[in-house]
């Protein structure tokens, strides 16, 4: 279970890459999307920015809200895998997906969602009228492992995030047997402002620190961002 968005901030890139390199197979991968990282029309290769797409080739099933790469993306691992019958696809909406994960993490047996009524999402689901409105029964989702990208951790496992890339990380952290967080920095207990802690340590089992300025670190991403922006702007000027 893993998050990805936009350029790949908020994505636990090292954990994804390590899992890929380990050569495991037959994974069930839960992620909001399986797209390449992108910025201003430029699509990054998986060498530059890892995304859950990298795990598609290792998967027997994916559960997601976004199963097609951008049209300009070249990596069709998932699409071809689904078309070829090698990967089972369970498609849902962003909102139902994250709520299902939350239900899995919080011990609920399921919930009635108004989203998907009258659409393909109805298939195989109980439809029920509650107070005059139609809902579909959605079931909880859990995973064996959750990969989380946070900004900093303390040694106990409390996590803080930065900006708008918190995403589904705090929720998926709750819904796995083993939650591993990938962070820029690990500080002593007490150094994080408690009012900024988003994920309490109870949800985190292991912490991995990204190498200083290493692949996927905040400074690596910022550098990649500046280089890309410069290239795009020079391209526009020519």
């Amino acid at each position, binding site marked *: 279970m893993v998050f990805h968005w936009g350029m790949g901030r908020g994505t636990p890139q090292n954990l994804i890459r390590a899992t890929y390199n380990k050569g495991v197979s037959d994974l069930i991968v839960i992620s909001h999307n399986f797209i390449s990282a992108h910025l201003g029309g430029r699509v990054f290769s998986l060498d530059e920015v890892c995304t859950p797409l990298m795990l598609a080739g290792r998967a027997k099933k994916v559960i997601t809200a976004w199963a097609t790469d951008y049209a300009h993306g070249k990596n069709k691992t998932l699409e071809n895998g689904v078309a070829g019958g090698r990967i089972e696809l369970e498609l849902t909406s962003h909102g139902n997906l994250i709520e299902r994960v939350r239900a899995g993490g919080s011990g609920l047996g399921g919930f009635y969602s108004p989203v998907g009524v*009258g*659409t*393909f*999402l109805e298939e195989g689901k109980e439809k029920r009228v509650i107070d005059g409105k139609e809902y579909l029964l959605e079931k909880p989702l859990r995973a064996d492992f959750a990969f989380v990208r946070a900004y900093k951790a303390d040694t106990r496992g409390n996590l803080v995030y930065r*900006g*708008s*890339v918190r*995403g589904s990380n705090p929720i998926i952290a709750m819904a796995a047997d083993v939650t591993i967080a990938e962070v820029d920095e690990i500080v002593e207990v007490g150094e994080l402002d408690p009012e900024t802690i988003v994920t309490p340590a109870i949800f985190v089992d292991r912490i991995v620190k990204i190498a200083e300025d290493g692949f996927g670190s905040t400074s690596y991403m910022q550098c990649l961002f500046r280089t890309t922006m410069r290239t795009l702007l020079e391209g526009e000027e020519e």
Partner: protein
Amino acid sequence: MKERLSQQAIAMRAAKEFQDGDYVNLGAGIPLLCATYAPIGKDVFFQAEQGMLGYSRLLQVEEWEEADLDYVDAMGRCVLPSSPGLSFFDMDTSFDMIRGRHLDCTVLGGLEVSEKGDLANWTRGNLEWGAVGGGMDLAVGARRVIIAMTHTTKDGKPKVVKECRLPLTAKECVDLIVTDLAVLEVTERGLLLKEVAPGWTFEEVQSLTEARLIPDPVLQEIQL
């Protein structure tokens, strides 16, 4: 052939619908352009579905040196890091906000809209795969759903139809349709043609629309 509105003009017209203080989510494509055209003098706050609320504009090219890539909209484009009043939250809270009818408005793209306000906008093909994204949640949850799209497909087929043929995003969810030819309101009686692109007539718009249109008694030209 008469001129149609540009994508920018469609976005400008859709953005005119925003009210002062509105919280708005913008879908991919033409809707995203609305971020640039929020009405002057009105405070409009945009929501990014991965978990951010309160930005009012995006970084312009000449500002990119200030960019902080942890402050990005739903398409990964930088907002002003100094945007005052921003708040961040997890994606579940974000969809609570959407599903719980807290957003005043969403502008989404469309592949087909029916005369009852059914929306199809996530796949041209079968159900085997596709990009559902947060569109279903937004179409069901936002208090007002505006569709910004071209009036016809690239090969000239109507996108405003009697019944959607493509897989649905949500049933009876659309309030207003803004196209490169017209502004249409979904009413109990059917689709009300409120505005037409400059130079176009009711009959011309109707001829490119499968659904039956009702002319507004005070049919106007689209003003930007």
